[in-house]
């Protein structure tokens, strides 16, 4: 480990843990692929896959919001799916009451989910470690039971959406291709914002809290407040993902809020790469692939998902992407 001091200016940060790049060599081809996807599926006479891709992007957005607080903030939240569900139900309930405009419903989903995240975070973030995991799980389950018991919103059977949200501007979201592009624009913008936030002062503080929370407190940072803000933002973005998901399937059900769904989200992040910028995206893709391939072969595909997850957790604890990354210096 011999390393002589270099003559570089001190602030060059060759390989800082706190800095995250979109990696243009990956981002641009990927974006190009995603932009041209509807043409490709149409050419292959497999238009159905455009809506699969929409779903994948939405799940990637949700998983990335979880990765934000988990991988970069160090908060193991086992109730994140609840915020997705809250967002979905916001759209569904508004639609039930005649409000179809996406310009109102989608920001509303963002805000409502954010509020729930704020309330749950206020209580949960007072706890640490194992307590925090279990409390987020319990609160999410509470929301599940709440939605099951509210018969006027469908209860256990769920709430169908009469149509997809309306955005005006000559767009008809019922057309899968148009819906896909709207989703793509939203996800791309949020993903860029996500990277900017990570690299900002706030993002550095958040990641430093993950590295050594006690020291951050001793340095005078109001750690609780930073975590709460991050938790709330992540919940709000998850809510937006939920709004899009509700549109995609034209349906919301309490099952979306069940703690096992939160578990699935954690699985996605761990599969993709905890703390890696593309972790949420890679994880969503990996999960959907596994689901697609195994549920086609057997009705017991959860068994194989569990087996794969177990293998990943024991052998590549930082996710599949970490295997590609260079080994960190000790």
């Amino acid at each position, binding site marked *: 480990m011999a390393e002589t001091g270099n003559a570089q200016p001190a602030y060059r940060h060759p390989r800082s843990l706190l800095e995250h790049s979109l990696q243009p060599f990956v981002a641009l081809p990927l974006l190009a692929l995603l932009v041209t996807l509807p043409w490709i599926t149409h050419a292959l006479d497999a238009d159905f896959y455009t809506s699969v891709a929409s779903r994948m992007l939405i799940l990637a957005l949700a998983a990335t919001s979880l990765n934000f607080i988990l991988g970069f903030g160090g908060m193991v939240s086992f109730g994140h799916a609840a915020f997705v569900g809250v967002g979905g139900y916001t759209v569904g309930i508004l639609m039930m009451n005649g409000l179809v405009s996406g310009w109102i419903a989608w920001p509303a989903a963002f805000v409502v989910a954010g509020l729930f995240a704020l309330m749950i975070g206020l209580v949960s973030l*007072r706890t640490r470690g*194992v307590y925090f995991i*279990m409390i987020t799980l*319990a609160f999410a*389950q509470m929301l599940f039971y709440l939605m099951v*018991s509210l018969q006027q919103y469908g209860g256990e059977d769920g709430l169908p959406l009469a149509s997809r949200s309306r955005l005006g501007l000559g767009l008809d979201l019922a057309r899968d291709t148009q819906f896909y592009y709207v989703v793509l624009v939203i996800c791309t913008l949020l993903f860029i914002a996500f990277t900017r936030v990570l690299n900002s002062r706030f993002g550095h503080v958040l990641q430093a809290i993950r590295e050594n929370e006690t020291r951050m407190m001793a340095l005078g940072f109001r750690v609780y407040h930073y975590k709460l803000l991050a938790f709330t933002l992540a919940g709000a973005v998850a809510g937006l993902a939920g709004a899009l998901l509700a549109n995609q399937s034209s349906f919301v059900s309490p099952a979306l809020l069940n703690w*096992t769904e939160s578990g699935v989200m*954690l699985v996605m992040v761990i599969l993709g790469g905890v703390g890696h910028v593309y972790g949420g995206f890679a994880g969503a893709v990996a999960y959907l692939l596994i689901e697609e391939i195994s549920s086609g072969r057997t009705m017991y595909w*959860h*068994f194989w998902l569990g087996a794969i997850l177990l293998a990943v957790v024991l052998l590549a604890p930082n996710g599949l992407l970490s295997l590609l990354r260079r080994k960190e210096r000790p």
Partner: protein
Amino acid sequence: MDAVLLLEQLLNSLQFGLMLFLLAAGLTLVFGIMNLINLAHGSLYMVGAYLVATLANASGSFWLGLAGGIAATIVVGIVLEMTLIRRLYQRDHLTQVLATFALLLMANDGVRMIWGSQPINTPAPGGLAGPVELLPGLSYPAYRLFIIAAGLLVAVMLYLLITRTRIGMQVRAGASNREMARAMGANVRWLFTGLFAFGAALCALAGGLLGPLLAVQVGMGESILILAFVVIVIGGIGSVRGALVGALLVGLVDTGGRTVVPWLFGALMGPAAASTVGPSVASILIYVLMAAVLFFKPQGLFPAHG
């Protein structure tokens, strides 16, 4: 709501609370001493219930089924601990959560593969099938009384075990300090295996006893697992006493919530409120309780000092 109905609900909540205690005790011991968060705990309960029910139906005797099912689940627990669980002790909580979640997924489908998706029904043991008249006007199923008795017996045994025996001392020492436990002569490896197996036994007992009352089906572990988590959060991780208090409290609020709250709403605000808002409030009451406890005591009611 008359006194008889109230008493009946009280007994129901006691019965439910004690069974919840069986699960919570195992969970809190494993948490507190091995520092392991185990999401597959509910799966042990489910597997235990399946094994007991199957053996009881096959042999025609509930008691044989119970004993055999518990023994079989202990074996499952030991095998699990020695192959997988012990790799997790030194790992971080996220890893433990995901690994045991993976086990949960595998267990659910594994059970489905072996037993199919149809729930299994077992009858209560013959001698206890009927009601018992506790007070004039109050009959209560004998089998539920038996469950209450069994639960209380286990609680007493656990108390004696932990406070009066050498193993109990080692367990309590382990809860605070692994090195100290080792210095006291405890073989930590075997202690951990034993504890995990003991937790599995308690799960199987609860699952086996509840089999005749509930349906033995896939996913039965999930709902009770959450409640067990709430119990140990309220009671304090690592504290068996906390698990008991927490379980009884949760049992009270849960059972009480389902019956008393809608009745209260109905009495105060009319039958419409009772049927709409009532059930919603009842379902979230436990979590409100948990939030309230945590607000004043973030480490639970009886935190074991680590």
